[in-house]
C-alpha cells in the first residue's frame, strides 16, 4: 500500500491551536496563582495567531486534504475567523468575572481553546466522521466548562442535564450518519452527495436524515430540542454561558450547511419541511416563553432560541441568497449574544450575580453611558432599524419571500413583534424605574471598553451593513 503525505498547509491553524493548547497545559503547571495571567495572555495570543494564519490562508479556492476529510473553502475561513474573534471577546469579558470567583485557572482557558479546536474541525469537516469528532471535542469541552464551578448546585445540575441530553443527541446523530453510510457506502460528503442524487432507496435516506436533523437541532437549540438551553445557560457561570451561547452556534451553522447542503442537497424537499417546522416552533416558543422570564439569563436563552428559528429560515430556502442571509444572521447573533451576556458580566461583581431583571432597574441614574449601550443592544436584538439586528432579520425575510414563502415571512414578523416586548421591557427598566441598588457603578477599564466597543459595533456596522453582507455573499460564491 502506498501512502502520500497529506498536505498539512490548509490545516495550519488547527495544528497551531493544538500545539499551543499542549504548551499552555504544561506551562500552566509551573505558574503560581499570581502569575496566572500568563495563561490568559497566551490563550489570547493563540487566538490572534490562529486568526492571522486563517487570514493568510484565505483564498477563493476549495482545498481538500487528509484523504478528503478536511476542506478549506472561503466559508470555512470566514467562519473560523469569526470564531476566533468571538472567543477572544469571551475571554476578555470573563477575566474579571473568573478572578472574582476563584475560577481564574488554567483549565478554563485550555478547555475553551480545545472547544475552539472542535469548532474549527467542524467548520472544516468534509466527512461525516471528522464532523462527528469535532462535535464531540467541542461538546466534551463545554460539558466540563459548565461543571467547573464545583461548589454550585445549579451548575452541577446544568452540567448533568447538558451531558446526558448531549450524549443522547450525539447518539441520534451517529445513528442517522450510520444509515446514510449504509446506503451510500461512503463518509465523504461530496461522494455522499453524488450517491444520494441518483439513489432509489429514498426511504432509508429520509430515515437517516430525520435522525441527523434531531442531532443538529439539539446542538443548535431549536424547538422541540431546546429543553436544555435555558437550564444550561442559567446554571453555568456567566463566563461559561457567554462562551457556549455564541461561538458554538457558528460551528452548528457550519454543521448544518455541510450535512444538509453539501451532503444531502438533493433531499432539499424533505429537509425543507423539517426545517419549516423547527423554525416556526422555535420562533413561537422562544419569543412567547421569554416574556414570562424574570431571570435575564433565561430570557436571553429563549431569545437565542428564537434567533435560531430565524437562522433556520434562511437555510430552508435552499438558495445561495438564503444561505448567505443565514450566515449573516449567525454572525450578527454572535455579536449580539456577546453583548447580551456581556451585559450580565458587566453588572455582576464579586459575590453578586446580576441575573435578575430587577437588578437593571434605573441604571440610567447610576451610569447613563452604559444604559445607552444596553439600549443599543436591546434595540438590535428586537430588530429596530438601523441597528444590526434589523438588517439580519431583513435579509433573512427577503430570502424567504424570494423563495415564495410569504406566509412564513409573515409568521416570522409577527413573532418578532411579540418578541420586541421583552427587549423593550429591559429598556423600560433601565430608564423609567427607580434603582434598587444605590452603589456607584464602576466596572474595570477593560470590561467597560470591550462592552462599549461591542455595543457600538451593533450600531456602527448597522449603519453600513453591506460590507459584512458582501463578505457573507462572497464566501458562498454570490
Amino acid at each position, binding site marked *: *500500500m502506498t501512502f502520500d503525505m497529506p498536505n498539512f498547509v490548509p490545516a495550519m491553524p488547527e495544528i497551531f491551536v493544538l500545539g499551543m493548547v499542549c504548551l499552555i497545559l504544561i506551562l500552566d503547571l509551573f505558574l503560581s496563582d499570581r502569575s496566572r495571567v500568563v495563561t490568559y495572555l497566551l490563550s489570547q495570543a493563540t487566538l490572534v495567531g490562529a486568526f492571522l494564519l486563517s487570514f493568510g490562508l484565505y483564498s477563493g479556492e476549495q482545498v481538500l486534504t487528509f484523504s478528503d*476529510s478536511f476542506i478549506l473553502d472561503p466559508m470555512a475561513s470566514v467562519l473560523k475567523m469569526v470564531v476566533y474573534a468571538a472567543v477572544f471577546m469571551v475571554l476578555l469579558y470573563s477575566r474579571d468575572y473568573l478572578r472574582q470567583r476563584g475560577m481564574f485557572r488554567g483549565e478554563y482557558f485550555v478547555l475553551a481553546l480545545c472547544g475552539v479546536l472542535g469548532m474549527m474541525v467542524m467548520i472544516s469537516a468534509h466527512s461525516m466522521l*471528522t464532523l462527528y*469528532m469535532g462535535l464531540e471535542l467541542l461538546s466534551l469541552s463545554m*460539558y466540563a466548562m459548565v*461543571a467547573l464551578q464545583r461548589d454550585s448546585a445549579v451548575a452541577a445540575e446544568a452540567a448533568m442535564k447538558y451531558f446526558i441530553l448531549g450524549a443522547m443527541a450525539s447518539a441520534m446523530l451517529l445513528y442517522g450518519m450510520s444509515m446514510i453510510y449504509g*446506503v451510500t457506502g461512503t463518509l465523504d460528503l461530496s461522494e455522499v452527495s453524488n450517491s444520494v442524487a441518483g439513489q432509489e432507496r429514498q426511504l*432509508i435516506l429520509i430515515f437517516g436524515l430525520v435522525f441527523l436533523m434531531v442531532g443538529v437541532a439539539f446542538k443548535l437549540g431549536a424547538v422541540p430540542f431546546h429543553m436544555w438551553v435555558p437550564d444550561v445557560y442559567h446554571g453555568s457561570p456567566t463566563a461559561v454561558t457567554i462562551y457556549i451561547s455564541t461561538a458554538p452556534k457558528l460551528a452548528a451553522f457550519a454543521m448544518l450547511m455541510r450535512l444538509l447542503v453539501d451532503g444531502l442537497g438533493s433531499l432539499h424537499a424533505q429537509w425543507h419541511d423539517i426545517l419549516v417546522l423547527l423554525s416556526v416552533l422555535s420562533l413561537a416558543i422562544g419569543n412567547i416563553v421569554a416574556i414570562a422570564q424574570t431571570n435575564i439569563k433565561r430570557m436571553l436563552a429563549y431569545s437565542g432560541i428564537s434567533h435560531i428559528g430565524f437562522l433556520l429560515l434562511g437555510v430552508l430556502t435552499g438558495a445561495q441568497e438564503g444561505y448567505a442571509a443565514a450566515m449573516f444572521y449567525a454572525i450578527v447573533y454572535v455579536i449580539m449574544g456577546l453583548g447580551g451576556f456581556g451585559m450580565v458580566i458587566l453588572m455582576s461583581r464579586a459575590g453578586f450575580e446580576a441575573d435578575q431583571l430587577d437588578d437593571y432597574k434605573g441604571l440610567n441614574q447610576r451610569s447613563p453611558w452604559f444604559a445607552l449601550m444596553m439600549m443599543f443592544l436591546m434595540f438590535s436584538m428586537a430588530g429596530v432599524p438601523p441597528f444590526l439586528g434589523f438588517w439580519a432579520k431583513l435579509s433573512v425575510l427577503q430570502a424567504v419571500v424570494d423563495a415564495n414563502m410569504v406566509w412564513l415571512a409573515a409568521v416570522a414578523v409577527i413573532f418578532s413583534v411579540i418578541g420586541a416586548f421583552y427587549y423593550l421591557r429591559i429598556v423600560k427598566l433601565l430608564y423609567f424605574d427607580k434603582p434598587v441598588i444605590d452603589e456607584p457603578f464602576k466596572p474595570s477599564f477593560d470590561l467597560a471598553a470591550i462592552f462599549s466597543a461591542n455595543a457600538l459595533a451593533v450600531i456602527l456596522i448597522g449603519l453600513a451593513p453591506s460590507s459584512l453582507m458582501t463578505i457573507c455573499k462572497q464566501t458562498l460564491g454570490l
Partner: protein
Amino acid sequence: MSFEQILFYLFSTILVLGATAVVTVRNPVHAAMFLVLCFVTTSALWLLLEAEFLAITLVLVYVGAVMVLFLFVVMMLDINIARMRDGFARYLPVGIVVAGVAIGTIVMAIWQTNFGHSDPVARGADYSNTRELGEQLYTTYVYPFELASVVLLVAIVAAIALTLRSRAGTRYQKIEEQVVVKKADRLRIVQVEAEERK
C-alpha cells in the same frame, strides 16, 4: 440455513434479549452483568464478520476494563431503586406510545429496503484484519484518529479539573518519603522477657 446463519441468529437473539434485560431488571448489578453479556455476543458477531481485532478489543477493553469500573461504581453508590422507579407508572403510557411509534417507523423504513450491497467476501486464513485496520487507521483516517487522541486529552483535563481539589485536611501519599523509608524507620524490634506460665 448455513451454520454461520444459525450462529448469527443465535447470537443476535441473545444480544437483543440481553439488551432488553439491561433496562428492565431491577438490580443495577444484574443490569451491568447483562451489559457484559451484550458485549460478549456483539464480539461474537464481529468474529463472524472476520473482524477479529475489534472482537478481541471489545472484550478486553469493555468487558475487561470499562465494565469492571462500572461495577465498582454501581456497588459503591447507594442507589435507591424504589425512588428511581417513582413516576414509572405515570410515564409508562407515554413511553409505550413514543417507543411504539418509533419502532414502527424504523421497522417500516428498514423492512422494505436492503442497503443494496453485495455479500461481504469471505477471506482466507492468511488474511489479517488487524493489519488492514492498522493501514487504514494510520493513512486514510489519520486525521480523525489524531482528533480522537485530542478528545481523550480533553477528557483527561476535564476529569482532573473536576475531581482534583486541595481541601484543608486532605490526606495524600508522599511518594518520595515512602520510597526512601528503611526498615529501621518503621520496625522496632523489642526483646520481650519470657515469662513463666502460671
